[in-house]
């Protein structure tokens, strides 16, 4: 009773390391580090009346048709001519030429005057449509490749425009209002029609 030991013995912490190791291993196993990336798309709104198929009336010169068949071949129709592409990588430049219509050619999308906030009066081709059609047994990767190329074409056009108009800056470096202006100049009109069978 009369002992004068007031010191509390220190807690043995040598096993804390083991405990935290176990936690660490648990988290390593149950979690995954993959950063999810992907191609962003927006689907069109559902039709209001299912029975009535809306037929959009678009002038032929405004439409670029891209068809993918089951063998993974790409067929393109723009400006009155149609052909199978030998090299799918051509598609990006075809789409760029089509959307841009620099020389205002009569068989490419019509240009009309439009006032865009931040850019002023412009001549734009915003009525164009790129229509992608697939067959039911088209492999997914070729569809994805085509979508990727079309998005790339738009991105390159937007980059060119923003470099030219906003002091050499790329589209991604623009402010929100400037991005809206560039998007109004080059809207993404990729339509995905119902799949059709064709030979």
């Amino acid at each position: 009773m009369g002992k004068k030991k007031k010191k509390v013995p220190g807690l043995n912490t040598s096993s804390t390391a083991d405990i935290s190791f176990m936690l660490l291993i648990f988290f390593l196993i149950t979690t995954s580090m993959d950063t999810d990336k992907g191609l962003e798309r927006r689907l069109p709104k559902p039709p209001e009346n299912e029975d009535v198929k809306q037929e959009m009336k678009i002038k032929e010169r405004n439409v670029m048709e891209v068809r993918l068949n089951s063998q993974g071949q790409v067929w393109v129709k723009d400006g009155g001519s149609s052909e199978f592409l030998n090299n799918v990588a051509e598609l990006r430049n075809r789409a760029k030429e089509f959307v841009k219509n620099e020389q205002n050619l009569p068989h490419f999308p019509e240009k009309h005057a439009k006032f865009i906030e931040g850019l002023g009066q412009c001549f734009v081709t915003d009525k164009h449509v790129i229509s992608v059609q697939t067959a039911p047994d088209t492999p997914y990767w070729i569809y994805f490749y085509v979508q990727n190329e079309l998005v790339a074409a738009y991105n390159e056009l937007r980059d060119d425009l923003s470099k030219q108009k906003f002091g050499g800056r790329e589209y991604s470096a623009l402010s929100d209002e400037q991005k809206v202006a560039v998007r109004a100049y080059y809207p993404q009109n990729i339509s995905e029609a119902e799949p059709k069978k064709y030979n």
Partner: protein
Amino acid sequence: MSKKGSREMPEMNTSSLPDLIFTILFFFMMVTTMREVTLKVKFVIPQGTELTKLEKKSAVSFIYIGPPTDQLRAQYGSGTRIQLNDRFAEPSEVMDFIYQERQSMSDQTAQVVSIKADRNTPMGKITDVKEVLRKSWALKINYSATTRN
């Protein structure tokens, strides 16, 4: 130079070891995400160049499309299947799945559907799913892919 007494090595001080491990632990907790489902289909996602990161993880629903894994092939065959959560499903069931997912989200307008489909999936399957997504007003979709150089 003087040789005095003991030759024993002094013990290393390990009192900061737990802190060290905890730091690593927290690092991993930050950069990783919980694995949500066990995959029942196998897929190799396509490659692209114009990819964007999926930003709000909490607003993302995943749809997996591909042939069943090797263990399940005997039972389910090798045809293309759609996986929602932990089970196989038909395209028509996607709508219920989307509504369920939407219910559990705080910002329901930000819902993004990530489609993780195998490279060789026939487009018919994907078009079916996309039609259902359209009807259920899940219009923001994301085709999952890896970066191509």
